[in-house]
């Protein structure tokens, strides 16, 4: 037994590089599992604990002005556990030393004590004093980004009046783990934050004494959410209810869910590739080793070693590979998991977020890795088990080649004999070729899926910023005003062109499916914001009817010509049946569009606007910003250049990191597969290749036989990998698409080309590492060793 153990170590020493290559491929699978499921678990557990301890609500609703007296009726709805009525509104904030205006969502706190639901977590300072109407608490990220500490003062426009407010403390809320400002696509803590204010102050600022405009509920166990939502809608309808919804429409929650589902997709798609490739590699390398050692196996059997001992002997090698892969994978996964979690804390503001994968991902990935290698070894080892000692002792029959389809092809093409050697080797060992093919194809696919992010992001950015939203700035008005405000806006400093929009919350319904979205009523000749057809060409707003984004039309099962019910969730709050006249390419959000005159004709009212898109002479921007801060009628200001910059910064940081990691994973598969295949080739054909040298073939010519075979396989694998990569990319865009941003599926030629070139270059380097060994082979010695 001890002698056999020594043999395991010696065998491993001979092929350590091959074993390491397999272990690395395996480690990638383990790593992705530990990284994705571990991060998923950390995120879920942290979120759930935060939700529970801070009583995150289940149902959310808005209204224009609902009397507090309604609350007892709402609380009496079957299934409602707790009710919290608040006043929520948007305010412009004027910060010291910041030219551009910031905005904030103001949320009321009960007149005394803390709220029953969505409890904010006090990080520093204290809650505002009920008797001090100027005291407010700020969301921690906003306060930190702007250097506002307890005791500091800042100015905000509340209900048309510029007020000075005092900071009492910093808060975090389960409702705003992920915070997006109006018309923003990325969290921007400098320009958007949350302000908590005692209710009397908030009511005074909004003229909502004795009333509320925001409602959150928690449900009792077993409650029927849809029924509660319907009941709440009924009760709030007379008071301008804007439609109740569950957590599935709660912004922060939706983003976290999206992230979790991406992690889930990653855990499902990637590890199987790595595990399957590792299993095949183990089979290939061990099969070759056993074929080489058949005489030794025969000898061991002949001198009385039981078959079990021999099986265990070879399994030990396998387990060595499995252990190494698992340990490396755990290490990498642990390390990257910490990195990824740290990245999350920049967007998701949890009071704490540690990477705590728990034991499960470790155990599961370890078992999967071991399972894969043992399964891969089984076939090879069973060949050793079946060997009868007498047969094993005889020299192996020389490889038998037969004429086949390849010959005719070879003659037709006038292939050189060295090329024929390659063709015959491929047709003689199709299984081995298939492993390389499958492995490299998987690698190309991973590369395509990782490079494609850049194509998609480019297209999204182009769609959003260059084709759809060409305005420099967007103003959100305190309340709807007459259309003539478009003209008034031209008198603001630097404004070259202004286009008004009336935005209203609506519920669109078709059959059983319905969704809460915004309706944008625009000028028919709007030029700053445009519609795109599915191919990305600008199209005019239809003269009548409503235009829906693709994803919404698909969700509701609607086609142009169909009727859709559009229920306005603002006064006069009534439904209309409108014809869908256009389906357009979605870039951001799921806004539906109509001509403003058509819309207000439906309502039988004079057209109004509550939003303004501006084209601005950028040199006058500071003057414009200063003016907007002093204009109480404006409650929101978005500078699109900032939106774009922050989006690009985020993309660059997280996407490039992810792309590097995934490209690395993709390349590792190619290295593992090609290096091993070439090593086996070399070992089996050293004699043959040495005899070519004797015949006067140059090193490069002999190297060609080794290199060209692997490169040919890689080349054939490329289109297969493209197909597989296309499929991966579809899975990925589906996983990443949310109601806010729907990712288009585009793969540029350069992505295909880059993936192919990366795989080819990696394969080439891998086989060159083996070629070095070929060059070191001593001809005379190689010829003496007759296999």
């Amino acid at each position, binding site marked *: 037994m001890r002698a056999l153990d020594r043999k395991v170590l010696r065998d491993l020493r001979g092929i350590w590089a091959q074993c390491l290559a397999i272990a690395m491929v395996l480690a990638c699978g383990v790593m992705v599992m530990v990284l994705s499921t571990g991060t998923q678990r950390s995120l879920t557990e942290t979120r759930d604990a935060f939700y529970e301890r801070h009583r995150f609500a289940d149902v959310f609703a808005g209204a224009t002005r609902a009397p507090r007296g309604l609350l007892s009726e709402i609380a009496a709805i079957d299934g409602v556990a707790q009710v919290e009525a608040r006043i929520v509104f948007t305010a412009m904030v004027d910060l010291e030393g910041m030219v551009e205006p910031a905005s904030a969502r103001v949320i009321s706190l009960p007149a005394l004590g803390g709220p029953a639901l969505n409890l904010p977590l006090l990080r520093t300072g204290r809650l505002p004093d009920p008797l001090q109407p100027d005291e407010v608490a700020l969301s921690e990220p906003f306060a930190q980004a702007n250097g506002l500490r307890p005791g500091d003062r800042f100015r905000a426009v509340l209900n048309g009046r510029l007020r000075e407010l005092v900071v009492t403390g910093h808060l975090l809320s389960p409702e705003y783990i992920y915070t997006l400002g109006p018309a923003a696509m990325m969290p921007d803590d400098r320009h958007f934050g949350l302000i908590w204010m005692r209710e009397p102050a908030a009511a005074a600022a909004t003229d909502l004494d004795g009333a509320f405009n925001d409602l959150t509920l928690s449900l009792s166990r077993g409650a029927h959410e849809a029924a509660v939502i319907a009941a709440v809608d009924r009760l709030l309808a007379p008071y301008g209810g804007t439609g109740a919804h569950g957590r599935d429409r709660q912004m922060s929650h939706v983003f976290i869910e999206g992230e979790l589902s991406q992690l889930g997709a990653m855990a499902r798609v990637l590890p199987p590739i790595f595990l399957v490739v590792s299993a095949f590699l183990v089979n290939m390398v061990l099969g070759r080793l056993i074929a080489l050692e058949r005489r030794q196996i025969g000898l061991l059997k002949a001198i009385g070693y039981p078959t079990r001992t021999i099986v265990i002997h070879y399994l030990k090698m396998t387990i060595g590979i499995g252990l190494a892969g698992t340990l490396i994978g755990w290490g990498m996964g642990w390390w990257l998991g910490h990195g990824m979690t740290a990245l999350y804390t920049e967007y998701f503001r949890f009071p704490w977020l540690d990477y705590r994968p728990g034991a499960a991902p470790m155990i599961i990935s370890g078992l999967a890795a071991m399972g894969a290698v043992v399964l891969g070894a089984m076939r090879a080892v069973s060949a050793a088990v079946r060997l009868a000692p007498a047969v094993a002792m005889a020299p192996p*029959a*020389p*490889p*038998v*080649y*037969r*004429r086949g389809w390849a010959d005719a092809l070879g003659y037709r093409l006038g292939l*050189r*004999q*060295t090329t*024929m*050697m390659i063709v*015959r*080797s491929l047709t*003689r060992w199709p299984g081995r070729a298939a492993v390389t093919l499958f492995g490299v194809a998987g690698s190309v696919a991973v590369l395509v899926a990782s490079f494609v992010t850049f194509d998609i992001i480019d297209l999204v950015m182009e769609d959003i910023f260059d084709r759809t939203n060409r305005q420099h700035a967007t103003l959100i008005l305190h309340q709807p005003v007459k259309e003539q405000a478009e003209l008034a806006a031209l008198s603001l400093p630097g404004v070259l062109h202004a286009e008004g929009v009336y935005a209203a919350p609506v519920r669109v319904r078709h059959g059983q499916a319905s969704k809460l979205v915004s309706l944008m009523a625009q000028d028919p000749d709007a030029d700053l914001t445009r519609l795109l057809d599915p191919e990305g060409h600008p199209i005019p707003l239809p003269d009548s009817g409503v235009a829906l984004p693709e994803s919404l039309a698909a969700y509701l099962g609607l086609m142009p010509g169909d009727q859709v019910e559009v229920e306005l969730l603002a006064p006069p709050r009534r439904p209309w049946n409108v014809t869908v006249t256009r389906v357009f390419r979605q870039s951001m959000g799921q806004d539906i569009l109509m001509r403003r005159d058509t819309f207000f004709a439906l309502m039988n009212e004079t057209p109004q606007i509550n939003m303004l898109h501006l084209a601005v002479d950028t040199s006058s921007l500071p003057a414009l910003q200063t003016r907007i801060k002093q204009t109480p009628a404006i409650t929101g200001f978005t500078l699109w250049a900032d939106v774009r910059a922050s989006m690009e910064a985020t993309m660059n940081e997280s996407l490039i990191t992810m792309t590097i990691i995934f490209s690395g994973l993709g390349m590792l598969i190619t290295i593992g597969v090609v290096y091993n295949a070439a090593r086996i080739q070399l070992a089996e054909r050293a*004699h*043959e290749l040495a*005899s*070519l*040298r*004797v*015949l*006067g*073939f*140059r*090193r490069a*010519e002999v190297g060609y036989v080794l290199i060209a075979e692997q490169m040919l396989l890689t080349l054939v694998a490329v289109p297969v990998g493209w197909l597989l990569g296309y499929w991966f990319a579809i899975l990925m865009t589906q996983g990443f698409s949310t109601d806010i941003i729907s990712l288009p599926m585009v793969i540029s030629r350069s992505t295909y080309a880059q993936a192919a070139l990366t795989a080819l270059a990696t394969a080439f380097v891998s086989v060159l590492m083996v070629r070095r060994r070929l060059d070191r082979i001593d*001809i*005379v010695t190689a*010829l003496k060793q*007759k296999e």
Partner: protein
Amino acid sequence: MKTMARARTPVLSTEAITKVYRSGPVAVHALAGVSVSLFEAEVVVLLGASGSGKSTLLNILGGLDQPTSGRVMFRDQDLSAVEDAALTEFRRKHVGFVFQFYNLVPSLTARENVALVTEIAGNPMPPEEALDRVGLSGRMDHFPSELSGGEQQRVAIARAIAKRPDILLCDEPTGALDSKTGITVLEALIGVNRDLGTTTALITHNAEIRRIADRVIYMADGRITKVEENSAPIAPSEVSW
């Protein structure tokens, strides 16, 4: 004609070559000062006990190996002073090898094994002609695994002569064959020598075979002990063993 050709122009010669193999503290002197010449168009047989240095000498003559000291001259070229790449070119252009274990490429047919060499040679004969010379025109499209040992060895000879080499070096070409088959292989070698005037050196264990040679070189312990001229070489078919 043969005597004329043997007007003593050496094709290949060595001057006091030694070959020392070192493994740790032990040094094996495989060749201990060998000076020998191979002349135009002659057949030389190398005889000697196992381990006497015959293969080592042949490998150095054929540019497969370099001597530890001494010179190897191919016509005017000093082979002991050149790089590996130049030795490769020397083998490619001028030398044909035949070994005891045929060293055919198993994935190529007989014809293709020969074509392997003709494709990279300057003035080769067609593979079919080479195979015809060794009496294998009927088995050209067979793979090595489908040929007998003697047939495989004759493919190896066809492959070695197809490029019309200046020198043909054979290391125990009949070593793995029975006598009858061995004779057909020897006939193929002698036929090539006679028709193409290829200088041929042949290692054997079998003393009887020396009778087909123009000269016989005896080796023992890495030295040449005796050189015999044979004024009347016999045909391989007359050899009996």
